[in-house]
């Protein structure tokens, strides 16, 4: 959360055209306090407490972007984004194409998503596949504190509309983040840090201006190197995947874990490169499996690595049901145990 707040503040300081807008983002600092203190620093001209109307927020953000601003929109919860669906799908995604490339709409839409926090209905959903399916939108999701800062800066700098999904279960992750940190200067996929958050090295050089390195937003990252099975995951499912990998390591099974980071476009090269080595792929996400990101990734990897695959790719995700009540959400979410079973399953072939 601190990393996101710092990223927003730094982006606003760097570029006077960056605006933050959404429900309760100003005086309250957002329901998760991600935008805390921004109103005090930048004033109501740049931190807009909007009326309670998601379509209105996204629609007016499009208008502001057409006028030359870079709005960063906060949607309060994943389940509340659907009233804005038409503006996101029919307008935000298509204006660049509709105008034959003359107009760009650099809107960043921040959406807290995912479950695991004991919330009521509509507050724990994973709508990423709905947006990844739409040409014209980029969909990214950080899973670590360090990525939260870097990727939000990159998303704001990106000239395309970006759906920025924040795993809300990670909001209270207090790992130190590097602001600014190496990924601004070096390709992210090379900086395969084994730990979740790489603390900033003292005296590290300041980053180049945001905008120069936003292309790194597209890259997946090998979070935990291994050689036996590839586990591709993202967002809130990274932590349980890493836990499952540790448990497998205790049994002498060397599991590689990849954080996809970008869901549109998908960095197939990184995953396929890993599967070329391991021959086995497990895909983990919180969203229900059917019609999800996992199916797309499985198809793409199978197409590239068919002769190298030792087992069919296995997907682990939520069940095909509306997100369940909080008391039983652990039965819905893919935990280390189910991920471990999937690893066993692909090793049985």
């Amino acid at each position: 959360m601190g990393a996101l707040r710092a990223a927003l503040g730094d982006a606003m300081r760097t570029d006077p055209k960056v605006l933050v807008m959404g429900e309760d983002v100003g005086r309250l600092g957002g329901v998760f306090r991600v935008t805390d203190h921004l109103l005090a620093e930048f004033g109501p001209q740049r931190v807009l407490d909007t009326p309670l109307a998601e379509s209105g927020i996204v629609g007016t953000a499009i208008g502001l972007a057409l006028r030359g601003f870079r709005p960063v929109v906060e949607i309060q919860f994943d389940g509340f984004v659907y009233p804005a669906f038409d503006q996101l799908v029919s307008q935000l995604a298509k204006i660049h194409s509709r105008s034959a490339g003359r107009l760009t709409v650099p809107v960043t839409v921040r959406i807290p998503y995912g479950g695991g926090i004991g919330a009521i209905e509509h507050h724990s959903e994973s709508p990423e596949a709905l947006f990844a399916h739409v040409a014209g939108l980029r969909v990214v999701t950080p899973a670590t504190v360090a990525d939260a800062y870097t990727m939000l800066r990159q998303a704001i700098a990106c000239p395309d509309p970006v759906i920025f999904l924040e795993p809300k279960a990670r909001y209270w992750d207090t790992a130190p983040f590097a602001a600014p940190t190496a990924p601004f200067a070096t390709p992210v996929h090379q900086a395969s840090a084994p730990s979740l958050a790489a603390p900033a090295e003292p005296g590290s050089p300041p980053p180049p201006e945001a905008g120069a390195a936003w292309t790194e937003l597209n890259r997946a990252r090998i979070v935990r190197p291994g050689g036996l099975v590839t586990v591709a995951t993202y967002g809130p499912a990274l932590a349980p995947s890493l836990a499952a990998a540790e448990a497998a390591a205790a049994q002498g099974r060397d599991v590689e874990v990849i954080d996809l980071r970008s869901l549109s476009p998908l960095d197939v090269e990184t995953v396929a490169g890993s599967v070329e080595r391991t021959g086995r792929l497990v895909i983990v996400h919180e969203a229900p499996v059917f019609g999800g990101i996992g199916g797309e990734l499985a198809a793409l990897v199978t197409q590239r690595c068919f002769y190298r695959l030792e087992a069919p790719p296995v997907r682990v995700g939520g069940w095909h049901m509306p997100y369940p009540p909080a008391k039983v959400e652990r039965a819905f979410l893919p935990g280390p145990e189910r991920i471990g079973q999937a690893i066993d399953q692909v090793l049985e072939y």
Partner: protein
Amino acid sequence: MPTGPSVPVLQVLAPDGQRNDASAEPAEAAYLAALTPQRMVAMYRDMVIIRAFDREATALQRRGELGLWVSSLGQEGAQIGSAHALSPQDYAFPAYREHGVVAACGIDPANIFAMFRGVDHGGWDTEAHRCHTYTLVVGGHVLHAVGYAMGEALAGQPDGPHGGAVIVYLGDGAMAQGDVAESLVFAASYQAPVVFFVQNNGWAISTPTEAHVRVPLARRGEGYGIPGRRVDGNDALACFAATSAALDAARSGRGPGIVEAVTYRMAPHTTADDPSRYRPASQEQAWAARDPIIRLERHLRQIGALDDVAKAAIDAQGDAAAAHARAACLALGPPSVDGLFSRVYATEHAQVAADAALWSAHRPPVGARCRPPPKPPHNLSRCPPPQARPRRIGTKPTPPPRRLGLPPHLRSAWWGRCGRRWAMRCGPTRKCW
């Protein structure tokens, strides 16, 4: 006309062309007083030209040159009158029937054909002409206009270089959309310099306005804190005056406004529509008597600003515009498919790049025909035409047993054990050998 409480209507020109400024409010009266005959003739000329263009477009659709056409017939007064109120720093967001507004913004209306001919989704240089593209989702663009106006207010001082206002065109049907309700909330909340120009043309395709509007649309803004004004939409001067006053209020920081122009869609909703299924022809005839062009022409003749010679010259300009539109339409060829890939994102996207590579690998070579060439005419001398098969009587004969490919002694290296050509069925791995 909506039912419910009535509201005063601004009408400057009666259908017989008589001018009376009495119903104008002071701000509107000032603009009316400043109207020169030359300006009124310019409005008249624009209306004649856009009607000629629109008629030509409908004809082009009937000839199959356009896939669809959305006629602006009958709404020229509302469109040209309001568009003439725009200053160079203002910005217009049309819906999809505002051909008059597009032309008044300096855009060659033939550009509109690109989207209706299936060549483009609609594009002109929006910034140069201060006019956004058409938006087909009804009401979807109204929020963009409000956001743009919020940006105008944020970007500069009211009397600075960015002191423009925004006008957004919508209709009686769009007023039912949730996005329009949210637009009104946002516009009022931020006092955005935006004018909602509502062309109440009586029909949302087949739904009459009175079926879903209980209080005049000019009063729709009251609960939001947005003042409204109803004008005779077939009176270009009234539309000009009311829009000018509303834009002036917006520019000077007095917030948004609604102008409801009561007009009539003389044509079908689109060329795919059939109004005879839902409205009587007598209604159309009644509105034809209130035609905006005839009305202004009568007035201009009354004040001596237009005579037969000048009218003939303007009509000739309309004919020339129609001829130009026709030629421009026919010159529009299919777009480059390669170009479609490059405009999805402003930056590179791996999936688009992969799809573009697939397309360039599989597309036909340049100059190749999409269809196979027609077969040569039947050569009767070499091959007699097939005759009707004799009708079979009795039981169906059992077919001879099917053989799997050639007998073994005739199999060559081209055939697999399954009896089929390996190259076709078994792939390069030759698994059936």
